[in-house]
């Protein structure tokens, strides 16, 4: 009985590792196959003649390099903005007392659960009325602050002892100085996890860029990828599409691998998707 249990656990572990990774494996080997091998029935489970040609080709058939840089810009700026606005608002909600604080805070938190599709139409109208349709600023502006970041930062800043803040005030430090020089340095794990969350979220975000952007020179990489797919539905071009998918996945995977522990811990702590 004990042995059966051990074998079952071992088998379960193997599945828990293989099932999540198999599609990623298939992405890699499909990118490495040539057009002939891709058309083979049944498919090969290991590339017979691996070639890296598709990785060059994807940059020629569509402006993939530009799209990659667009994503870096969009995700980068949004992430920095979310960090700054969340630390500031989180500090106020954690440490200042004013009338309506709790109501305002929970109203903000409630927006965390709002599916973006609900407000897509008016958001499009607002941003295009501001003259920002089809612009980088238009893609970023609605997402430059978010409830999740504020919630996360408030939770962490609440743990900072009040005595520390009072001592700084005694010394005559301004509120801004207290926030950036006293509190923020203590928030490193929180800032790192929020940065990762925000970066992954903005890098992968698809619905809003799809709705607000028209010109392909402003497309982020996921949008470019969806266009690439619609040009090349034939299986012989699948290596190019898979190479694109692989390149698009590298930044978030890399960030995850580098900071896996912090990331998992912060999911556990907050329990909400950013």
């Amino acid at each position: 009985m004990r042995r059966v249990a051990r074998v079952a656990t071992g088998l379960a572990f193997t599945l828990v590792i293989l099932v999540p990774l198999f599609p990623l494996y298939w992405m890699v080997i499909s990118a490495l196959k040539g057009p002939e091998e891709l058309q083979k029935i049944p498919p090969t489970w290991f590339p017979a003649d691996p070639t890296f040609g598709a990785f060059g080709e994807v940059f020629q058939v569509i402006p993939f390099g530009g799209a990659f840089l667009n994503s870096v810009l969009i995700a980068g700026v949004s992430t920095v903005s979310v960090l700054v606005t969340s630390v500031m608002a989180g500090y106020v909600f954690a440490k200042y007392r004013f009338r309506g604080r709790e109501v305002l805070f929970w109203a903000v938190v409630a927006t965390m659960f709002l599916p973006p599709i609900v407000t897509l139409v008016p958001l499009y109208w607002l941003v295009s009325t501001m003259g920002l349709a089809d612009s980088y600023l238009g893609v970023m502006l609605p997402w430059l602050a978010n409830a999740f970041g504020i919630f996360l930062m408030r939770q962490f800043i609440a743990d900072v002892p009040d005595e520390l803040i009072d001592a700084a005030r005694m010394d005559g430090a301004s509120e801004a100085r207290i926030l950036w020089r006293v509190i923020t340095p203590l928030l490193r794990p929180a800032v790192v996890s929020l940065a990762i969350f925000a970066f992954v979220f903005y890098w992968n975000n698809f619905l809003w860029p799809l709705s607000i952007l028209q010109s392909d020179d402003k497309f982020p990489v996921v949008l470019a990828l969806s266009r690439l797919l619609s040009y090349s539905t034939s299986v012989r071009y699948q290596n190019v599409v898979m190479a694109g998918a692989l390149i698009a996945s590298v930044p978030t995977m890399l960030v995850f691998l580098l900071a896996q522990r912090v990331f998992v811990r912060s999911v556990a702590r907050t329990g909400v998707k950013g």
Partner: protein
Amino acid sequence: MTVGTRSTPAVRAASGRRAGARGVSRKAATIAFLSPAMAVIGVFVAVPIALTFWISLHDWSMYTPLSEMSWRGLGNYRDLLAGQEFFTALRNTAIYVLLVLVVTIPLALALGMLLYFPKSAGKGLARAALFSTYVVPAIAIAIVWGALYAPDYGPIAQAFAAVGLDAPAWLSDPGTALVSLVVFHVWQMIGYYTILVIAGLTQIPLDLYEAARIDGAGFWRQTVSVTLPLLRRTTTFIVLIAIINAIQVFDPVYILTQGGPAESTTVLSFAIQRSAFQYGMAGQASAMAFSLLLVLIAVAGAVLAAMRRRS
């Protein structure tokens, strides 16, 4: 870190002069620190919720100025209730969400226990593998799943053939397309929910298990009497988050099926985006969007009420 060493004598002297102004400066800081975030959330989240309802009461083509909207009252809602599309989308969304829940909740609980209790070397690797699917762009990995599901060229079809079974047509059969998308969704999100279960498990004191063992309870008994009851809050939370995540599924539908075949994967979010941006029927899209919000609030309320009644 000591703060005192950081302020110069000049700053310290200034603090005396500013003592009376401290209340004012705190108030100014509140406004200064809060306003960037509140402006963004107010203008781009709060106002649009109200606007969604407002637009849903009008006829509007999306690409003309808002001033050219014409009042329709509840006409858009009447059209939704009279037509096919909304009910199809609502039904597909309901099936999708239910299937996701039915698979996700037991699986996440089982995986959470598997990755928490045994003292095994592979635990860290398994957690990382399981969670990695969550960070890959949905668009990129949906493309891969399209290839996995492909008839003839796909590995899943081959695996079925290898054991002598006829593979379903997955995404191209109206009977299986929605289920195929559910499988993808669960595959991508399960690691995330599992981490939440593990976080819940770490809150259960280990001596409870010790006591149960002394009373002669085996693994199943411990699971039923200790683990599951003490995970109730976590489980409720996961149910809510899973509903919210599943109810807004869009990316894989857009990439893999475009709502087809035969509208079998037209879920609400896809129908909303399509009415607004492809058909130019923003009033009707907004009526659907606002209905989605109401449905979501009702469902979340029901889940919370059910949870409260039982405890």
